[in-house]
């Protein structure tokens, strides 16, 4: 009797969607502290080397930064709509939105690649003679620029891997209308990457 009851219990799927979401948020808080430390370093050095920061930021192309901002904002939109589509039971539309999100993520990286290549061609890469000949404040600006946007780009790459997994899961119905917490949590990660860029953009591209 007892065994039968136990067997019945065991056939139940053990899941705790709210718990999963809390876990995801906890992880995102560690990300927040990671980037927060860098923003603090940025604040301190910008305070110390104001004029050098303003001068160095002229090297960045505002237009490229603006395009990447729009790309990420739009990818956040399609990510959010992908979850709505899945929850409304429209698997196909959800996949289209998810695919679009991945495409935009790639577009962001392609844009970043060209942006960085142009800097490298001008000799402005970490440790280059050209860069080291600049005043200290400008060296620090470019150091922060490469570390912060580089770490952010790494997050975009990780985001792409996660979203590709989600695409496969939705395709195979492992993630579906009733069980979508994984897609939701991936979305949370993607939106955080977006939020970090929202702050990186004005702080590096739009200085006077």
């Amino acid at each position, binding site marked *: 009797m007892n065994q039968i009851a136990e067997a019945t219990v065991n056939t139940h799927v053990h899941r705790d969607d709210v718990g999963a979401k*809390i876990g995801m948020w906890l992880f995102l808080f560690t990300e927040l502290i990671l980037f927060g430390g860098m923003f603090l370093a940025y604040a301190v050095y910008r305070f110390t080397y104001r004029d050098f920061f303003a001068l160095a930021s002229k090297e960045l192309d505002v237009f490229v930064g603006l395009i990447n901002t729009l790309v990420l904002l739009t990818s956040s939109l399609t990510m959010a709509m992908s979850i709505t589509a899945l929850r409304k039971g429209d698997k196909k539309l959800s996949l289209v939105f998810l695919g679009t999100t991945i495409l935009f993520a790639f577009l962001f990286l392609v844009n970043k690649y060209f942006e960085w290549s142009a800097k490298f061609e001008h000799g402005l890469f970490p440790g280059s003679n050209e860069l080291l000949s600049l005043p200290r404040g400008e060296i620090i600006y470019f150091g922060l620029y490469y570390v912060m946007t580089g770490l952010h780009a790494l997050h975009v790459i990780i985001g792409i891997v996660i979203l590709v997994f989600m695409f496969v899961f939705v395709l195979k119905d492992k993630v579906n209308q009733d069980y979508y917490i994984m897609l939701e949590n991936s979305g949370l990660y993607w939106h955080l990457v977006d939020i970090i860029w929202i702050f990186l953009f004005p702080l590096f591209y*739009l200085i006077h």
Partner: protein
Amino acid sequence: MEKKNSHNHIVGYGTYIFVWLTLVALTALTVTAASFDLGNFSIVVALGIASIKGLLVLLVFMHLKFDDKMFRIFVFVAFLTLTIFLVLTFSDYSFIR
């Protein structure tokens, strides 16, 4: 019960598109504002607009507006902690010079 609170609300496409349009408009605003020389005020404007954008993403895209209240408190405390770190360390640094 929790399931009802946090999982029954499906946000419509319209809401998301509206928020996206607002985000794009705020981006245009911050770029335009940066082309004027506002002196010390420009960093305040830039960070202010970025904060509004971040808040919109948190509340709507990241569902905090529709999720259980617990999540809002959770995230608020996390950001508050970060703000304390940033403000205290920065103010300490700016006064030692």
